[in-house]
């Protein structure tokens, strides 16, 4: 939007509208402070530790696990749309050519000015960062961590090496790898709901934890035992398991690595669908 459109009457209108919104929101927040109704969250909090010691991950991936699937989808769609604007998957009508598609050229930047020391330490730093990201995703149920964070940390490692090395990036994520890992992540997350759906009819029921005793014990062994820990809590010692939560988070992490990596890739290196591209490899096209 052209900022000059906001001068004059329109600008005044916009300012008045913003003022009304601000006053309305602030007065409500003041009224709510100290009076927030806990509602259903009491029940959530009482039960959360039965699944995972990090109750935030129980909230996000068990009670509200399906919300998180769609949030993962928002990231996926955001990446696909951003890259589509750059040029991946533009379509035309066959009967009509119209104007040529808008193409965005890659960013031009120089890497010569960076010191040798930075280049020398770039890759080891990035590898340590990637390891840290992986640590974060494995610790989702036992400590603060999760798929979103892992994805963002790994993508930031990718951005770091991109800035240090330019086109000769040692973290050599290809287009196909990024699209594939992003899709595999979202698909994997969604597929984790299937076992619960097939056994109980509830999509994404946490089979491993099985709080409500809906499935046979064999499923506890398959989905729960690999992540079972003995928790020493105030309430006593529990041999509890987060069930499918770690798997969901790996899907989440893949999705975020793919999505954010793809956005970095497309904005920095540009996008072209030339025949030499990886994406057209093996594809017959029309």
């Amino acid at each position, binding site marked *: *939007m052209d900022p000059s459109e906001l001068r004059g009457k329109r600008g005044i209108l916009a300012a008045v509208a913003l003022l009304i*919104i601000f006053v*309305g929101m602030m*007065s*409500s927040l003041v*009224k*709510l402070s100290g009076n*927030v*109704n806990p*509602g*259903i*969250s009491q*029940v*959530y909090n009482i039960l959360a530790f039965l699944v995972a010691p990090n109750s935030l991950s129980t909230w996000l991936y*068990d*009670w*509200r*696990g*399906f*919300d998180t699937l*769609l949030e993962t*989808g*928002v990231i996926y*769609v*955001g990446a*696909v*749309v951003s890259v*589509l*604007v750059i040029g*991946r*998957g*533009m*379509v*035309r*009508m*066959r*009967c*009509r*050519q*119209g*104007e*040529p*598609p*808008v193409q965005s050229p890659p960013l031009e930047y120089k890497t010569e000015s960076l010191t040798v020391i930075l280049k020398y330490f770039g890759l080891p730093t990035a590898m340590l960062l990637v390891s840290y990201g992986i640590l974060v995703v494995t610790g989702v149920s036992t400590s603060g961590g999760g798929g979103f964070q892992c994805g963002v940390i790994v993508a930031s490692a990718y951005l770091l090496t991109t800035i240090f090395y330019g086109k000769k990036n040692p973290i050599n994520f290809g287009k196909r790898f990024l*699209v*594939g890992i992003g*899709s595999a992540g979202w*698909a994997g997350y*969604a597929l984790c*709901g299937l076992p*619960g759906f097939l056994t*109980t009819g*509830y*999509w*994404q029921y946490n089979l491993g934890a099985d*709080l*409500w005793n809906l499935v046979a014990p064999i499923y506890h062994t398959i989905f729960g035992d690999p992540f079972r820990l003995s928790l020493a809590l105030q309430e006593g010692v529990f041999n509890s398991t987060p069930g499918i939560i770690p798997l969901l988070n790996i899907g989440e992490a893949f999705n975020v690595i793919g999505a954010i990596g793809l956005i970095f890739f497309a904005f920095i290196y540009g996008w072209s669908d030339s025949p030499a591209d990886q994406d057209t490899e093996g*594809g017959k*096209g*029309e």
Partner: protein
Amino acid sequence: MTESISNLWSIALLVTIPIFATIIVNLLFNRNRAIKYISLISALSLVVITILSPYGFQWFTGQPALNPNTLTFTFDASIPAWRMALEFYFGPLQQVLIFVMALILVLVIGIATNGLTKNQGPYIGMIFLLFMSAAIIIMVNDLYHLWIAVEIGSLVVVGVVAASGEGIGQKAALKYALFSALSGAGLAIALALILGLTGYSNISDAIRYIQTTNLAGMSSILYVAFGFFILSWIYAGGLVPIHPLKSEVYGAAFPHGTAMLQAQSKLMLVAIGLVMLRLFGSLPFAREVMLSISVLTMMLGVVMALLQTDLRWILAYLIVSHSGLVTVGISLGTYDALVGGLFQAVNDVLYMSVLLLGCEAVYYFGKGTSTKTAVGIAKKAPWLALAMVLGTFAASGIPPFNGFQSKIILIQSALKVGLPEVAVVILILSVTTFIALFRGIYSIFLKPAETTPLAVSGSVPSEAQEDDKETPIPRGLYLSLAILVVITLILGVYPDLVIRFLTPVAQAVSIPWYP
């Protein structure tokens, strides 16, 4: 809503099949044949699931509800209890709306996979996600999930519009992205306020809490939440004052894409409108605000449509103005008005799709859709001209087409609540729709071709690039048009086929105009 089943299979499939289809076609990217088969099979399976499914609930992640009276957990959806899980409901209204959307999805997928060039994967994926977002919004009974679905829905709109790759599409897409981010944030604030006030993100639970508890001084928070809800409603449906933004989106996408976009947008209007009616319908002045926005949208949209000289843009503005018809019914909130508004949503989606697919067919004559360049097409394609004229009749509410049936219900209900002004506006809208559409259709189809300045083509250099060669119209496009025209006719003669699906919801939600 007395169905007690809380693990209905169809709801999960209606949501996840589009997700998997999107992922697969996006990965296939340029293998058009595989994309075509996979997407057609998925879309057809969605239609079948919608028809076969019984009614009921799906509690995602399988958490029970806590009965506050006995303090026990239950999986029976008919018992009023605080839901721990995310709740979706599939009932008669959902069935008919999702069926119409799935039908259009099948037709659009058929047209897109035949009529577009290579690398269709991401675009077809976006079309599936349009369906998914609309299906979720109409089924979900949870404020938080409603917000996420609105977010994903508006992002996908951006994708569908930007995929055309033309400057105008990209500009419209980016503008819409900016403003829809604002509306998403508004909805998030609204849900945060309601969540803070009640503690429940399940809409039925929140309403039960509001009705059973004395809110005293806190009730002003409801008004603020209502304001933010209105904001997102306006953005979702392109109501006044952002109608130019949404019309740009409709005009810049491919016509078949617009058919999906308008279907999604109408489902969103209905769903958010019903939620608003349930949550805020009894607040004084709430419905008056909604009604005035709707009436303004009808009038401004149709006036803008009169000014256009391109069929694509005439339709873009008409879609927005007809959204106002749907919302008039929902804002009035009485039983009759709700039936009329919901029925109008179904009819609107159908007849606008006829017109949009006809508009797509006009492109095959190689002269664009401007009334100045494309003329005399009726001679080459008489059946197409007939379909367009019938579509115009349906849109202008001429019997025996479906548009007539819903408009007459709306007019009667407006008169019943003592608002003859609204009835008059609806009548004016019908007449003006006819004028705007027929002006465009007359010059494109019926005006004799010899009056065109074809011989002096050098004098219109700007249109020269549109001057591609003529291509035969694919049979699938004709078939889609025929199916849709027949449905508009059948619904015009037997409106009860749809109306019996709408009455349960109208009964449950309706509020008398002067309580």
